[in-house]
């Protein structure tokens, strides 16, 4: 175990994260990320097939979709995909900017070309071929976002925002998440 480069001591890091989660609830609403993957998909889908998002005065939000998911909750996702410059979408773009900013001013960033391709735990166990890592990262991303949408939220929305509000779904989500991720990580990443 070595000193993290560019990372705060654990308690300070926790306080900074808490400030971020609390500020969001104080000013607007709890933080969530994974929905925006759907919004981005739907915005692109609508460019390819303009019928997928329709203006509809009979819908609660003024938008509807022939797709059941985008049409859910009165066409909420259809509306946000038609207007990507909404709070939640811009929040996620700004999150990326914030991480970039932090990494530029002595925060955490890959320290070598090799580290920008894969974490050390991966190369220790599966070799340094980047193609293999990229294929598995793609598969993992697929599973993660499918799972997040099935759950109705991800680590930010369900676990952090959920558990701070003592929401039951947050606890259930964390239970499912760690029930698979801990044993799998122990099995996959044996060498260290």
């Amino acid at each position, binding site marked *: 175990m070595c000193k993290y480069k560019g990372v705060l001591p654990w308690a300070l890091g926790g306080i900074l994260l808490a400030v*971020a989660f609390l500020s969001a609830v104080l000013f607007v609403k709890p933080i969530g990320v994974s929905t925006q993957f759907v919004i981005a998909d739907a915005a692109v889908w609508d460019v390819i097939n303009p019928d997928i998002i329709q203006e509809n005065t009979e819908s609660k939000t003024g938008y509807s979709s022939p797709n059941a998911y985008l049409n859910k909750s009165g066409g909420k996702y259809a509306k946000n995909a038609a207007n990507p410059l909404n*709070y939640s979408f811009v929040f996620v773009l700004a999150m990326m900017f914030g991480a970039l900013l932090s990494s530029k001013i002595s925060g955490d960033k890959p320290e070598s070309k090799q580290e920008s391709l894969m974490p050390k735990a991966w190369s220790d166990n599966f070799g340094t071929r980047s193609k293999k890592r990229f294929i598995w990262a793609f598969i993992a991303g697929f599973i993660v976002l499918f799972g997040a949408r099935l759950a109705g939220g991800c680590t*930010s929305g369900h676990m952090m925002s959920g558990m701070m509000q003592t929401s039951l779904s947050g606890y259930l989500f964390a239970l499912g998440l760690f029930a698979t991720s801990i044993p799998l990580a122990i099995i996959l990443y044996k060498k260290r």
Partner: protein
Amino acid sequence: MELSLAIALGTLFGFALNRAGATNPENIINMLRFTDLRLMKTILFAIGVSSIVLFGGLKLGFIDAGHVSIKAAHLGVIAGGALLGVGFAIAGYCPGTGLAALATGRKDALFFVLGGFAGAFAFTLSYGWLKANTSLFDSILGGKVSLAETGSKYEHLMTMDGTMLGILLGLAFIGIAIAVPKSLR
């Protein structure tokens, strides 16, 4: 106004994720395989502090109960969490940290994010069928409920004073954060 808030709050969150070490997949993997639990301590501490300030703030009135947002409990939450855990262990990224890591120059995160777009799209196409043919989205244990009373439109499960319970749970998270060793293996 709303967009300036989105920019300010989003930037703060991304900055915090990076400084907490959550945008580095090595730290996530080490947390999950118990070789370095500092990130777990950070997460538990953050939830604890947030819970205490949130419930204190709701009681004192400086946090608007209308901002509380409780997600529904259904079987898909557990199944989806378990599925997410599989990808989380393989990649060392979750949706937020994957995007943030991509911004810090991690190339594997780009493939994770692309896979994420594909996975979210596959779910968008599957939702109608899943909703009609499975009970994954039926509410369980009360649906949109919290343990502690928040004073919002959502129901709560425990009869104990909400502020007290929220703060006690927050203290419990902080206690666990302190008690968890920095590494177990």
